[in-house]
Each structure stands twice: as structure tokens, then as C-alpha cells.
């Protein structure tokens, strides 16, 4: 089997890795019709985190994909929507400042760059249509186009199609030279931005009647990287968008630094544009959509799959994909590839693994000893009740429960009577995941909780790139995979841990605050990892936090930092729920991105909240190392977590001072908690 080509395909999980024509790789998302892109006359703002598929969507909408040469037939009416993709070249655009050139000239230079780049794109779109299977017009029609009227913008512009395109490309090079050496080279004749582009489109429509009803949709990617004054210019284009030239944006959350335009009016949501949050739109359909993408990739690697690629690539196929039978088929197939385990199966696994059974028994003994109970540990480790046995140690550690009461309830369960394990107190349901994670221990073998396609989807949290990487890392570990067999649980869980560690390191490249964000995730993840090690599991699965009162308020910079963390999807911001005090003001809670859960060996589910003071949050965001150490020590003591319970892979640094202080000649060797 062509496993190499398969791995190659799966590893290309960024749109930038593909050509501009992404048609064969694209799966039309189920929410596509909601975007109303083909008939809309109002700009669209596409929001979403890193890896959620913004660029892929924009490229699919662009002429290179719409009129892909790989499409065997393209309906005539396809030319009513012509997409022009423009990924803002921030490296180049950041050069547009100072150096003896006044701001007005740089403003004009920005318009000029837009005119050239979009002008070339408009002309390229004509070629895309002409050479495609769309029968609207052919290449010969391009040769007879006359662009003489554009000389009004620059008298030296040629009037023929091919020469005009070459002239714009030549202007791009000479413009590049001027921007690089603006003091010494003569200023070029600046073209008038969107006005030039609109004029070019009018000329084309006046000479190609088939395009008279066509609308041109500019898709500007990575808007967040533009300087604020450049965003104001783009905002102006948005505000004044009208057919046949509509501007649309794609960006991460919290990225629109200004809603101002270059005029007196600001942009207003709904009135001037519509926002579509891709992750919110996917929501419940994510797992099915992700499975379809995975299967399309497998299909491109010539593997048998339950999907028909042509249906996935076409908006017309969405209805067929809503069929429950089809959806069940996809779900069954993907579950066969990445199987998971029920909690019962996971618990049974412990009983077939001697070291884990021993560890479970030891934890029960430890709890009984701590409680001063003489009961027999074997009474709480029952192969006939594996799930209840897993949660027993946590219950026994709780001073509010008498060990003999727990034993009595376990006996009732075993005898089929009403009991607290499955009854109204639902001990198993509430404590299983936390207890299981604790049992597997952070230094132990891969935990089955992190296996299964549904689990992968929850870890990915709407991020297609994360999902594909989890699948890719799993398949990569299968030496002789035949394209059909399911990936074993341990292999998946181990792959999840590897991918999680890899994505954690990636945080450091998340913009200018990347290193600080990385430190923040490490600090927060460590705190949550300690929370998960609480012997009582009294608050199991704490994976998110809210911010309560403290002695110091968060500064604007702290708030900006949290926004930056949301922008780069290392945490998710959600309206606060389950407030214990109804009098508290409305706030937000922040969920650590679940993709980091396998690394920190914590739950990926949003279950219980940790209420942090502003002081604690400040330490996590910008505290010194000593303050972080003190915070972790304080919570560890409050939660009665022994340092020996913590993962050496996570917390070895707390005993690192000796190494770090060697430079300074210190012989001090600090130990966490001592």
C-alpha cells in the first residue's frame, strides 16, 4: 500500500502547503450555505483560530480552485462569483513606514500595492476561466480585449491583455525596489487602489458580456497582521464595498484592532459586514466533517473509503451528506479506524494489567490507612465491578464518607440493589475520568482515555489541523498498515501524547508574545495537573478557570495578554457558567485548549471550574519563577497533593535550581515543597 503517499498527504495539514488550487483537497463544510457567499452583496468576515480552515475555505472560493483544471465540468453560472485571494504580505507591508517618506505617501503606496496585486489577480482569473472546462469564453477572447481606458491611471500601461499583465508584474518589481530604497529611487506612478481594480473589472465586463453579471469577491487573508493604518484602509474598502467588487476578510479572533475607516465613519457589524465564526458554525458537525476530510485524504491515497470525493467537493453534495444513513456509515467507518473504549472496557483493562491492579490496590490501602480504617483493601477492588473499583480510592480519601459506608454501597451495587455508585449520587459517572487519569499516573503507560476518533475530535476542539495531526501521528506509528485495520488504543493514546507535546512547543511561535504564551500554558497546565492529582477527586476534571477578586486588579496589559491567548487559541473564552454566587458580575471563563490535555495528563472535557484570584492570574501571566513555584506549592498543599504524585516530566524543573544556579556559583539545591 502506498503508505508513504498517504503519510505525505496527511502531513500536508496546512492550506499553505497546498497549491492555490485546493479543489481536490477541499471538503465543503456543512455550514457552507449559511455563509451565503454566492449571493451575498455584503462583505463577510471569517473568524477562526489557527488551523480551523480559514485559508482553505478562502482558497476554495478563489478562482484558482473554482475554475480548477481538475474539474471536468463547470456550470456556466459559476462565473457569477469570482474569488480573488490575497494573503497580506506583512513582511513587505511592514516596510511601509518612515525612512524619509511621509505617511501620505506610504498610504498611496499601500493602495498601489493593492491595485497591482489585485489587478494581476483579476487578469489571472480571466485566464483561469478561459482554460477551464467552463464554456463561458476561451483564451482567444482575451487577446482581443482592449484596456486603453486604463491609461487614465498610468499612461504607460499597455492595452493588450498579455502585455497589461506583464506590465503590472513589472510594476510590482519596480515597486519592490522603490519600497526597499525609497530615499534614493524615484517614486513610481501610484495606481489608485480599489478604484483601479474596479475600473479594470468594468472594462472587462464591458467587453466580455458573459461576465456582466459576475461579481468579484476579494478574500483578504491574515488581516490581523496588517498595521493599524493599513487596517483602516481595508476597513474603508469593506464599508464601501459594492457590486461588482466586494471585499471580505479572514482573521483570528480579537484581531480587528480598529473599526475606523479613513473617513469619518467607522465600520459597524451587520450594517457593513457579517461575521462568520467557523468554529462556532461547525460545532456539532465537527466530528463528521473531520472524518470526511480524513477519508478524502485516504481516498486521494487510493484507499477504499466510504466517501465519494466529488460529493464532498461540491456545495450541491451537502444535502446528500445530511442523510442519516450516510452519516452513520461515516461514523462507523471512522470508529473502526480509530476505535475507542467505553469506561467499562477501560476499567476492565486495569484488571487485566497486573501492575495497574496492584497500583489500584495500593491506592485503596493508602486511603484506608489514612482514614485509620482496618477494612480489607480487597473489598474495594472487585473484578466484577471494575468501574466502581476505579473510583473507590477517591471516595475512601474523603473524610465526609465512612469507609464502611462506601463498602456497603459497593456491595449493594454488586448485588444489583440501589446504590450511590450508580444512583442519585452517581459516584462512577462523576469520578471515573478523574480517578482513571490519576490511576494511570502521569509517568505511566499511554492512557486509553486519549484514544478514539471522538476523543481526537474533542482534543482538536474544532481545529482541523490538530485532528489531522492526531490521525497522522497515529498512522505513522503503524509499520505495516494495510489501510483497513484499526489503530490500536495504545498507539492512538501514545500518538495523542506526542502530538500534544508537539503542539505545546508550537505555542512559542504564536506571534510576538509566543514565548510568554508558552510559559503561560506551562504554568496553567501544571496547576491543572496538580488539581487532577487531588486524592479525594472532590473537584474532578478542572480544566478551566474564571477570575475572581484579588488584592490587585488585572492591568490592561494583562487583559491584552488574555486576549492574545484567545487569539492564538491556547485558551478559549466563554461566558461564565455555574456561578456559586449569583451576585457576582457577569464574566468569562477560560478553558485551556484540550489539545494540551494529553501532555499534562488532564481531562480534555470542560467539567469543573477553578476560581482563581486576580493575584494568581497575574502570577500565571507575568509572575517571576519564584512566584510560580510558590503558587504551585500553595495549591499543592491545599489540595494535599504529594510532590511524589507529580509527573517528573512536568515538574522536574522545580528541583532545577542547582543546575541553573551553577552559573552563579550557588550550591543551593531547592526542592519543591520543602
Amino acid at each position: 500500500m502506498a503508505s508513504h503517499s498517504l503519510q505525505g498527504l496527511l502531513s500536508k495539514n496546512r492550506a499553505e502547503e497546498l497549491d492555490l488550487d485546493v479543489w481536490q483537497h477541499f471538503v465543503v463544510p456543512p455550514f457552507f450555505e449559511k455563509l451565503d457567499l454566492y449571493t451575498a452583496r455584503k462583505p463577510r468576515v471569517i473568524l477562526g483560530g489557527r488551523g480551523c480552515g480559514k485559508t482553505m475555505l478562502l482558497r476554495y472560493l478563489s478562482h484558482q480552485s473554482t475554475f480548477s483544471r481538475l474539474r471536468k465540468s463547470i456550470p456556466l453560472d459559476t462565473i457569477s462569483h469570482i474569488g480573488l485571494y490575497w494573503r497580506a504580505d506583512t513582511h513587505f507591508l511592514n516596510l511601509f513606514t518612515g525612512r524619509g517618506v511621509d505617511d501620505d505617501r506610504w498610504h498611496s503606496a499601500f493602495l498601489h500595492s493593492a491595485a497591482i496585486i489585485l489587478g494581476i489577480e483579476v487578469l489571472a482569473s480571466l485566464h483561469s476561466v478561459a482554460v477551464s472546462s467552463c464554456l463561458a469564453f476561451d483564451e482567444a477572447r482575451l487577446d482581443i480585449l482592449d484596456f486603453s481606458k486604463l491609461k487614465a491611471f498610468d499612461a504607460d500601461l499597455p492595452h493588450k491583455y498579455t502585455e497589461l499583465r506583464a506590465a503590472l508584474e513589472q510594476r510590482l518589481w519596480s515597486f519592490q525596489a522603490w519600497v526597499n530604497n525609497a530615499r534614493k529611487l524615484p517614486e513610481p506612478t501610484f495606481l489608485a487602489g480599489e478604484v483601479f481594480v474596479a475600473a479594470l473589472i468594468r472594462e472587462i465586463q464591458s467587453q466580455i458580456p458573459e461576465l456582466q453579471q459576475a461579481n468579484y469577491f476579494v478574500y483578504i487573508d491574515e488581516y490581523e497582521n496588517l498595521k493599524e493604518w493599513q487596517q483602516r484602509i481595508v476597513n474603508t474598502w469593506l464599508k464601501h464595498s459594492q457590486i461588482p467588487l466586494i471585499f471580505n476578510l479572514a482573521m483570528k479572533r480579537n484581531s480587528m484592532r480598529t473599526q475606523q475607516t479613513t473617513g469619518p465613519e467607522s465600520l459597524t457589524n451587520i450594517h457593513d459586514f457579517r461575521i462568520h465564526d467557523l468554529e462556532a458554525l461547525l460545532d456539532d458537525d465537527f466530528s463528521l466533517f473531520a472524518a470526511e476530510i480524513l477519508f478524502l485524504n485516504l481516498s486521494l491515497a487510493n484507499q477504499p473509503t466510504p466517501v465519494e470525493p466529488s460529493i464532498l467537493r461540491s456545495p450541491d453534495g451537502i444535502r446528500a451528506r445530511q442523510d442519516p444513513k450516510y452519516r452513520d456509515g461515516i461514523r462507523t467507518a471512522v470508529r473502526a479506524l480509530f476505535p475507542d473504549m467505553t469506561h467499562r472496557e477501560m476499567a476492565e483493562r486495569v484488571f487485566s494489567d497486573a501492575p495497574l491492579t496492584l497500583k489500584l490496590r495500593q491506592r485503596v490501602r493508602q486511603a484506608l490507612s489514612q482514614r485509620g480504617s482496618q477494612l480489607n483493601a480487597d473489598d474495594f477492588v472487585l473484578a466484577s465491578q471494575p468501574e466502581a473499583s476505579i473510583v473507590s480510592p477517591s471516595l475512601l480519601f474523603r473524610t465526609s464518607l465512612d469507609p464502611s459506608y462506601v463498602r456497603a454501597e459497593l456491595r449493594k451495587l454488586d448485588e444489583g440493589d440501589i446504590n450511590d455508585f450508580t444512583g442519585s449520587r452517581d459516584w462512577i459517572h462523576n469520578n471515573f475520568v478523574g480517578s482513571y487519569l490519576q490511576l494511570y499516573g502521569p509517568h505511566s503507560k499511554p492512557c486509553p482515555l486519549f484514544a478514539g476518533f471522538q476523543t481526537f475530535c474533542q482534543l482538536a476542539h474544532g481545529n482541523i489541523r490538530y485532528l489531522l495531526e492526531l490521525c497522522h501521528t497515529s498512522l505513522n506509528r503503524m509499520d505495516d498498515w494495510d489501510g483497513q485495520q484499526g489503530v490500536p488504543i495504545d498507539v492512538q493514546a501514545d500518538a495523542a501524547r506526542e502530538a500534544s507535546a508537539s503542539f505545546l512547543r508550537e505555542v512559542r511561535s504564536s506571534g510576538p508574545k509566543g514565548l510568554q504564551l508558552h510559559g503561560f500554558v506551562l504554568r496553567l497546565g501544571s496547576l491543572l495537573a496538580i488539581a487532577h492529582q487531588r486524592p479525594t477527586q472532590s473537584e474532578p476534571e478542572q480544566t478551566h478557570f474564571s477570575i475572581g477578586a484579588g488584592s490587585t486588579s488585572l492591568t490592561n496589559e494583562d487583559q491584552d495578554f488574555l486576549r492574545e491567548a484567545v487569539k492564538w487559541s491556547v485558551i478559549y473564552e466563554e461566558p461564565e457558567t455555574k456561578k456559586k454566587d449569583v451576585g457576582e458580575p457577569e464574566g468569562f471563563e477560560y478553558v485551556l485548549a484540550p489539545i494540551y490535555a494529553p501532555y499534562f495528563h488532564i481531562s480534555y472535557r470542560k467539567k469543573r471550574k477553578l476560581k482563581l484570584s486576580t493575584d494568581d492570574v497575574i502570577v500565571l501571566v507575568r509572575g517571576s519563577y519564584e512566584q510560580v513555584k510558590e503558587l504551585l506549592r500553595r495549591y499543592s498543599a491545599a489540595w494535599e497533593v504529594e510532590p511524589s504524585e507529580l509527573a517528573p516530566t512536568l515538574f522536574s524543573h522545580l528541583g532545577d535550581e542547582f543546575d541553573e544556579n551553577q552559573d552563579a556559583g550557588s550550591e543551593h539545591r531547592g526542592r519543591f515543597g520543602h
Partner: protein
Amino acid sequence: MKIRMQEASTAAGLDISRWGTCIHGVALDDRGNAAVTFASANSARSLAASYSSESFQLTVGSVSVDAEQAADALNGQINGVTLLETTTLGFVEIYLCVKALRCMGAVDVALLYVEPRDYSGLRRSHLLHRREFDLSDEVPGFRPIPGATLVTTSHTSQRAVFFLGYEDRRLESAFEGQHVTPSDSSVVFGVPAFSPGWEMNSFANNIRVLKGSNIGTIAFCGAESPAAAYDVLAEVYDSLAPGERLIIGPIGTKPNGVGVALFAGTHPDVGILYDHPKRSVKRSKAVSGWHLYTAEL
């Protein structure tokens, strides 16, 4: 370009003649102090240089100019053969000075580089260390350099060459935020490294990014050799397809960066992607090998 290279275990082992002017940066560690002391003692005049990636200003001595006017900053301040003290100068200062010297008709340039005996906190491990929890300064990120910034669009074609060091984050940031795709990129490891085994740090740290990136090609050149770096670039440059441009990412060793500066300083059509890292105080310990390079411009 002819690049002569000398190496000695101490400064006394270098075969030198006095230089007219030495241009140096700020010394932040033992080797920096040793290098600036040596360079100044053997030059008729010493000038400190610095570059601001925010304002694009180059300052040499007391003269500040925009980057594209680097020659104006050197004009009237230098005399005879110039020594660039590259241990303390940043990459951009070296590049702008090389470009300016060539523009001014200099025949050759000397470049000094002193190795550290060890880097502080340079460990390779799967365990977390305190330094990962310590807060780091903001990384300025990839900021353009006037005179070395190419425009990229859907219709331009470019090949990138990255010289790699210890920090995988730098390569990853380039792929994340810049218009270069891994498949159109080559990465160059500094092998042999300054000390046996150091190359493993670079491999281990970068392997994660390379594994997930479909990198075009992987190459190797001596970590302490500007000439080898220059040759790698010349080879790629000569193999560019018509219309294809070369973008260089000097995010590896300083000597490799010197090779990049010499190449880019004499090839105005190439672009540079550089992330302007802030050098930390006491980043390295003690002094090891001394290198003197002389390049004909």
C-alpha cells in the same frame, strides 16, 4: 567570492596585521569582551554599531542613518581595511556594513568571531526546565530589512534557505507567518558543530518542525564556516528557475550568518527573513576558538 579563514585556540595564534577601523557591537559575555578588546587593540579606530529593527536605523559611532544609507554612515568614519567584530555585532549590522563597504569600493573586509566555551542552560532533554517557565522578552519577530525584502504574492515564486541553530521556534515562526512554504525551502544544519555533539542539540530541537513540514531539502555546512554557507547559497542561487527568487533565513550560527551577510551584501536581488532576537546577557561562558575571516568584496 574568496573567503580566507583562520582558526586559533587563542587570539595570539591568529596571523593579523593592524586594521584601519574596527566596527563592533555591545559585549554581553566573556567572549564578547575578549573579542572587542582584541579588535580595538589592533585597530586604529573603533566604532560601535547598532541597528533598530523598529525604526530601520543603523547607528555607527555617532552617526545614525536609515538602513539604505548605510554607506553614508561609514563614509568619513572608516579608514583602511575594516574589521567587523561579528561576535558582538548582530546579523543586520554585519549585512549592512558589508553592503556599504562594497558600495564604497572596499576591496576586502575582515571579520572576527570568537566561540564560547559553553552556552548557559543549553541542555537537550524531554523534561521541562525552569527556563521554560521563566518569562522571556517579547520576540520582535520577522521584521523586514530595507534593501533585502521581497514582495511575495500568489504569483511570485521563491525558494528559501534557512540556516538552523538550536531554536526550532524560529523556523516554525517563519513557516507560520511568512510567505515561505516548507516544500520550497531548504534547511542547513551546522555540521560539523563548534564542539562534537552540539549538532545533536540542533537536530533534536528542529526535528519536530522538520518532521511535520515536508521540507524540500536538508543540507549541511560547517557551523564555523562562512565560506561553506556562502557556497551553499551560491549553489541554490545558480539553480533558481527563471523568475524564481532566493530568500535566506540566517537563524543558525553566527559564522553561517556571516556567510549569509557576505552573500546577500553582494547579491542585491536576494531577500532576507530575519527575526532579530534579543541577545541575553551572560548567554555564554568563557572563551574558546578564535576565527578570523577575510573576504574579497
